[in-house]
């Protein structure tokens, strides 16, 4: 059953790349509220306040250029490994969309070579 669906999905995606991309597009969200939600649910403890990631492998970098919305949502609802789940009862679909909008709105930092980082 699962294989069939996947096959069809693959075929559809191959035949209609534009539509497949459409499916992966994030629902509309408010970056501003996303920031509020990000701080309220304290994503920053493991990922930093602008999703820069945290030292000692605490949590990976989330932004700029976040993972696809589908992966993002999947990670929040049923995390791959050790991250706590953010279930629907506590974080609504709209809040997830807002969180994503916030991460997507984060601008890249200057490149390492433009910063006074130690280099040896």
């Amino acid at each position: 059953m699962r294989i069939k669906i996947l096959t069809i999905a693959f075929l559809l995606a191959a035949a209609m790349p534009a539509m497949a991309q459409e499916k992966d597009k994030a629902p509309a969200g408010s970056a501003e509220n996303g920031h509020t939600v990000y701080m309220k649910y304290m994503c920053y403890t493991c990922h930093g306040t602008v999703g820069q990631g945290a030292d000692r492998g605490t949590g990976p970098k989330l932004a700029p250029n976040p993972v696809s919305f589908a992966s993002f949502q999947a990670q929040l609802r049923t995390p791959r490994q050790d991250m706590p789940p953010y279930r629907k009862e506590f974080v609504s679909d709209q809040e997830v969309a807002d969180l994503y909008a916030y991460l997507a709105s984060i601008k890249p930092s200057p490149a390492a070579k433009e910063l006074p980082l130690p280099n040896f």
Partner: protein
Amino acid sequence: MANGFDRRSFLKGAALTAAAIGTQLVQAAPARAEGGAEDGKGAAPKDKAVKRPGSDFMVDVIKATGIEYIASNPGSSFRSLHESIVNYGGNKKPEFLTCMHEESSVAMCHGYAKAAGKPMGMLAHGTVGLQHATMAVYNAWCDRVPVMMFAGNFLDADKRRPGVEWYHCVQDPAAIHRDFTKWDDQPVSLQHFAESVLRAYKIATLPPMGPVLITADGDLAEEPIHNEKNLKIPKLTMSIPSQGDSGAVAEAAKLLLAAEHPVILADRASRSAEGMTRLIELAEALNVPVVDLGGRMNFPTTHYLNRTDDKRALVQEADVVLMLEVADPWGQFNSISDPHHEYRRLAKPDVKIIHISVSESLTKSNYQDMQRFMPVDLAIFGDAQATLPALTERVKSGMSSNQRVAIGDRVKKLQTDYRRMKERARAAAAVGWDVTPISTARLSTHLWNVVKNEEKWCMAVSGMQWNKNLWPAKEYYNFIGGSGGSGVGYGAPAAVGAALANRDKGIFTMTIQTDGDLMYGPGVLWTAAHHKIPILIVMHNNRAYHQEVMHLQKMAGLHNRAMDRAAIGTTIENPNIDYAKLASSLGLVSEGPITDPAKVEPAIQRAYAAVKRGEPALVDVVTQGR
């Protein structure tokens, strides 16, 4: 108080009662009365001065060990020894350092020993001081670091003053420490004291090293020395750390030479700069990447074979792993996920593992610092630093020409991989550069930019990986490793202890100080100011017991509950602590709290100038969690 009268009538009454029931007290009472002019008339009062107290001899003994400092919070159970240190001993070698908590005293010894390469002493006041000391002793034990502990006590119950002194006395002073000290004794004579202190020093400093505890009995210290000509301070000859069995070393060399993807994991391997030099020699002979687990400074961060940040990948692909004094061997190859406790194997099932270590000779039952049992293929009992030259020799002499070619061919890839690892760290450090609160990578960078022209520097305590990933550290004294037991409260006093050792060696000392850790014993800042110990303290102030916030988040997720209450009981806000004010009240030059990333480097620069004048200084920087 008119003691004479009260005491006399008490004694009379006591004698009568005792006579009636025929107890020992009959003998005790007159013995006491003989000592002084209890009747208040008759012979002129005698000068009761003790011209040569036992504690003077105790100071001679301590001097014989070469201990330069004794950290202590003053206490009456060792008042005689304290007085002998400052007057008879001239307060030099050892110098008495005023501490505000026994945990600070011991943690100072801990940091000092790693920076100085030799132990210093601490003095604990009876039961109370010893109990305060315990956590720091446990850290030193877990970290296998020598600490010479002394404690006051009045063992003879007949001489104790009533009341508080009884609360502060103990039959077996070392009992609460015995699970995490290497040795202890409670000498009952001065000769016994001399021999036990030297024995303790030898035991503490022989790998695996560890804290030891000698009781300096109060009566022995306060009473006059009898027959001084019979007292002898024995010669102190240090034992040479043992080298691993030569056959086993040859076998290890064979395994390493035959390996395609070998890796070295070094933890408490280097006891001195020489250890680092020896490890470089072995690593270069084999072209084998080294992961410095950081228990000690084992390998320069500038060396192309230092691949610490690639540990996971290296262990995953390794066919032979050489571990050098690794504290947690099992954890290098396996993990247990959190919070689901799922087992994960990182390494290949058939990886060949060699461990050179002396840790098994110092394992006790109660506290679980021995870590999970790890089956290995070749367990060599021996001190890693002492064994390395023989291993390198075997590797060089046993290398076939084919192996020489293969090993030589590895260089290019290793150099490229090293570059890639460094670039990755720099790229990661750049992300979120302008964020407020300041990112830990940026804080680490600014600090480096201020101190980078120091010829000799030491980052005493830092949980930040950035310092190792970004900074060029080439010398053994650059880092001194961690706390051992991860008992909070280690950071500030250990850093001050390291700074003390480094002050005498001309090494500039700095530390990254976490907020929760500092609040366990901020009094050590006063100790640094009082004793003019220069140190640059930069706060990594995330206003939380940050790790505990994350634990609460994990538990809320696990228990399917709301995800927004993890700050309760885990954060240090409302009110925010003003660490700059705290530090300045304790006599430090201070800056902060700094929230604007652009202001961090100038503030560190100003504090740095104060440290260069010989003062301790603190910069409070409000940071990201990690």
